[in-house]
Every structure is written in structure tokens, then in C-alpha cells.
């Protein structure tokens, strides 16, 4: 593009000057990008220490949120397992006929959000209590069975969250035949609360760390730009656009992200490997087989994309501010 000399190619003395056809220019765009990307990588090698510091900061900053994420994910899995066992126990009034109990059982089975209902007649309840409590024969001295008939309701999949389960509980409790209903919701609520809290902390932490990463990358790129001040001036003098000058710096940011993301992945994997044996030991004590889940491939990709995004954002911030301000003098 020649602004001042529209017919520059037919200017006297410049007749041999050929323009590149547009399709060649189009093909050259990705080629140039690739060349500049590789050149930026080479540039990083020239100053490996400073570059690696920035990449390490980027990577380690992402390690904390991603490790916390693994923690939350695994805790959620455990909590889900426990929630699946959650059941609503309906203690029935003692003055009911057997037929009323059967009707209630059928009714409950048909009501919304119920997966299955098991009746534990009071005799069976007493028998179980005898064997499990250790009171044994002592209970024989009771003149009558003090236990009520019990319906154990397993909520359907859709009604297992603490909130929905509680709704179900309230609904079932309203029935005339039910003396009272019980579900140990409190600990479930607490666990959910703790999980929510950790998730919130995780989110806030991630935002703060990401911001600091952007600033750190931005600062590194800024120093890069300032150290190449003279070079940038020369490039501007021979007609380089800001976009052209910016590109290598943006690629540097991308490389920071790519390698920083790798650092984050390795550090997270190391951390998980480190705590895994301890976790397995702990869960063995509880006699529940448990497998610690690391980051999946998809999640890894997300961490990587975030890292690259942060690197790019940081360099963009620096580039935008500083490349424009450098003018040849």
C-alpha cells in the first residue's frame, strides 16, 4: 500500500519494483505468524533465566487453584456418595391398622421424588435393635414393644440434594399417619456449606492469582519492550506498523502461557501424587475404598488455555501501552 504514490510501480526509476499479488500476501500471513512465533521462542532462549522465572510464576500461580479444584472435586465425589445413601425415615403413629400402613406405603411409593419404600415392622425393628445394640436378652423384659413401625424412604435421584430432600421430608411428614420424619440433614447441609465456601474461596483466589499473573507477565513484557526501544524505533522508521512490532511480544506472552501451563500441570500432578498415599491411608481407616481423581485431560486443557490466555492478556496490556508510546526521534 502506497499512500503518497498511487502509481508508484510505474514511477520513473522504480519501474522494476514489483508488488506482491494479494494471494501471495494472504498465504504469507500464517507463514509470518509462524516465523515470528518461532523467533519469539528463540528470543526466550537468549534470556532463559528471566523467561523461566516468569513462566514459573505463571505456572505456580495456576497450581494453587488447580490443586484446590482437585480437592473440591474429590470432596464433592465423596459427598455425592454419602448423599446417595441419604434416606428419609418415617416413624408411624402407633394406633394404625396394618391395612392403613400398607396403604400409606403404597401411597408413598407412588408420590413424587420417591425411589423406593421399605417397611420395617416394629417386631423386626426390635429384633434388629436386639442384635445390634448389644442389650440382647435384656430387652425381653419389656412388656410391650416400644418401637413404632418405620417406613424407610429412599429419595429418587432428582430429590437427593439437601434442599430437595428436605422438601420431600416436609411433604411426607404432613401425612396423617406419620408421627414424625427424620433425616440427618444437618451434616449434609454443613458439608455442602463447607464445599460451597471452599468453592467460593477457590474462585476468589483464582481471580486474584490470575490478575497477578497478568500483571507479572505484563511487567516482564514491558521490560522486554523497553530493552528493545532502539530496535522498535528503527522498525518504526522503516515503516513497521504497531501491529507488526507487537506480534513478537504477543507471541512471547503466548509462550509464557504454554510453558507456564506445563509447569502448572507438572506441579499439580506432583502435588496430587504427594498427597495421594496419605489420602488412601486415611480412607482405609474409614474402610471406604477411595480413588483420588487428578485432573482430567479436558481440565488440563482448560488450565493450559487459561495459562495461554493470561500470558496473552498480560503481554497485550504491556504492548498496547508501550509500543505506541515509543516514537522515533
Amino acid at each position, binding site marked *: 500500500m502506497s499512500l503518497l504514490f498511487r502509481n508508484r510501480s510505474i514511477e*520513473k*526509476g522504480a519501474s522494476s*519494483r514489483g508488488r506482491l499479488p494479494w494471494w501471495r500476501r494472504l498465504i*504469507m500471513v500464517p507463514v509470518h505468524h509462524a516465523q515470528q512465533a518461532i523467533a519469539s521462542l528463540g528470543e526466550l532462549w537468549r534470556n532463559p533465566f528471566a523467561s523461566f522465572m516468569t513462566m514459573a510464576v505463571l505456572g505456580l500461580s495456576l497450581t494453587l487453584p488447580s490443586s484446590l479444584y482437585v480437592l473440591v472435586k474429590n470432596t464433592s465425589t465423596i459427598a455425592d456418595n454419602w448423599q446417595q445413601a441419604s434416606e428419609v425415615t418415617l416413624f408411624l403413629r402407633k394406633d394404625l391398622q396394618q391395612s392403613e400402613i400398607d396403604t400409606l406405603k403404597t401411597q408413598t411409593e407412588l408420590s413424587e421424588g420417591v425411589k423406593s419404600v421399605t417397611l420395617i415392622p416394629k417386631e423386626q425393628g426390635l429384633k434388629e435393635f436386639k442384635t445390634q445394640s448389644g442389650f440382647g436378652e435384656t430387652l425381653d423384659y419389656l412388656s410391650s414393644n416400644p418401637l413404632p413401625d418405620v417406613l424407610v424412604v429412599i429419595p429418587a435421584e432428582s430429590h437427593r440434594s439437601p434442599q430437595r430432600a428436605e422438601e420431600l421430608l416436609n411433604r411426607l411428614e404432613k401425612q396423617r399417619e406419620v408421627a414424625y420424619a427424620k433425616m440427618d440433614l444437618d451434616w449434609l447441609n454443613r458439608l455442602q456449606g463447607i464445599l460451597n465456601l471452599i468453592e467460593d474461596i477457590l474462585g476468589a483466589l483464582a481471580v486474584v492469582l490470575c490478575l497477578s499473573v497478568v500483571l507479572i507477565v505484563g511487567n516482564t513484557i514491558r521490560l522486554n519492550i523497553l530493552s528493545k526501544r532502539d530496535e522498535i524505533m528503527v522498525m518504526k*522508521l*522503516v515503516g513497521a506498523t504497531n501491529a507488526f512490532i507487537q506480534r513478537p511480544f504477543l507471541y512471547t506472552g503466548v509462550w509464557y502461557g504454554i510453558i507456564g501451563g506445563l509447569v502448572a500441570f507438572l506441579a499439580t500432578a506432583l502435588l496430587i501424587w504427594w498427597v495421594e498415599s496419605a489420602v488412601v491411608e486415611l480412607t482405609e481407616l474409614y474402610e471406604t475404598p477411595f480413588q483420588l481423581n487428578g485432573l482430567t485431560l479436558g481440565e488440563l486443557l482448560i488450565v493450559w488455555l487459561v495459562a495461554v490466555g493470561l500470558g496473552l492478556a498480560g503481554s497485550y496490556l504491556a504492548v498496547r501501552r508501550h509500543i505506541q508510546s515509543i516514537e522515533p526521534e
Partner: protein
Amino acid sequence: MIRFEQVSKTYRGGHQALSHVDFHVQPGEMAFLTGHSGAGKSTLLKLISLMERPTAGRVLINGHDLRKIKPAQVPYVRRDIGMIFQDHRLLMDKTIFDNVALPLIIEGYSVQEARKRVVAALEKVGIADKAKHYPYMLSGGEQQRVGIARAIVTKPPLLLADEPTGNLDPKLSMEIIRLFEEFNKVGVAVLIATHDLGLIARLRYRTLTLKDGRMINDGLEDGEL
């Protein structure tokens, strides 16, 4: 080619570098711009290459008013002007080849496509054998030739040189000037700022003289303008 109309330039802080400068350099003309240090030679060149903007008046290149050039268009204007500096302004960590190829790469040439032109430009200034060297390995005169090769590699219709012979002895200076003459012979307009009056005296070219920011002699006989 270059036309100044009542151009004044006052720098921030009140220093008036140019006042009411009028002149016109024809297409294909070669001219010297002279004056003592601080007379405004560099400022005048900077106004042409859009490193500075005039405070008043207007500068036209090939009939285009530079006031209408937006900041984003400045790089494209500079691609039409070959600029040569006293301090060469080379990229010190790049080879001579890369330095000369830079304007072509910026225009979107691949290295392979640029190679032929770069070699031709280096041959023209007589340092084709130094392509793989780095600037610090070269003498001042050779570095200046690299600067010239870079300026002409895109075959711009206009060459500006700011004290191109500033650090060179008379013999080398003359060689550099001969180079400019060669480009001028194929139709390139050349404007050379220099305070080397001895050099100018040996050549018969139009000489524009600045004094304290005023054009005291535009090198033309009366009535020729």
C-alpha cells in the same frame, strides 16, 4: 515532490526550529540542505518523515498534504521514503542481510523473496560480501552503506539523508555522495542534509540553506521558482 508552504515548527518549551519555510524539490531532483548546527535541518527532515508535525503551514509530498495522514497511516508513508541517518540506526543484533531485508519483511515479503533484492541492494552499495556480518564488525563507512542499502531496498521514489557523511573522511564521504548520485540518475529524488560545506562546494547541486530556522537561500536563481 517535496513542497513546504509557510511551514513553522515550534517545539514544546518554545524553541522555534523552523519559521515560514517555503521550498519545492522537484521529482527526480537532488538537493543539499545545509546550515549550521541547530539551524533546523533535522527538524525539516523529521517533518517530511512524519516524526514531527508542523505547528503551522503545510508539507506536501507528491501533492499529498501530510496533515491529512492519520497516525495509523504514518508507517505506510515511511515506506515510500528511504531514510539514512548519521548514526546509521542499524539493528545491532541482526546480520547485515537481516538489517537490509527488514523493510521488505515489514512489507510482507518472505525471506526467500527478499533475498534477491537484498543482494542487489548490497551489491549496489558495494558490500555484498558482508551480508552475514554483524554491524559491529563493520567500519563506519561500511555501516553507512548498510544504512543506504536498507533505504533503497524497497526502491522508494524519495531518499532523505541526515548527515550521511558526518563521521566519514572526505574520500569516503565522496564515495557515499557518488552513490546518491547513482540513485538520482535513475529518477529518485534525493535530499541530503549536511553541514559539510566543502563537500557541497565540490558538487554542482542545488543547495538549500537554513539559518536559525529560516530558509535564507533556496538554491534557485530569482524567477526560477
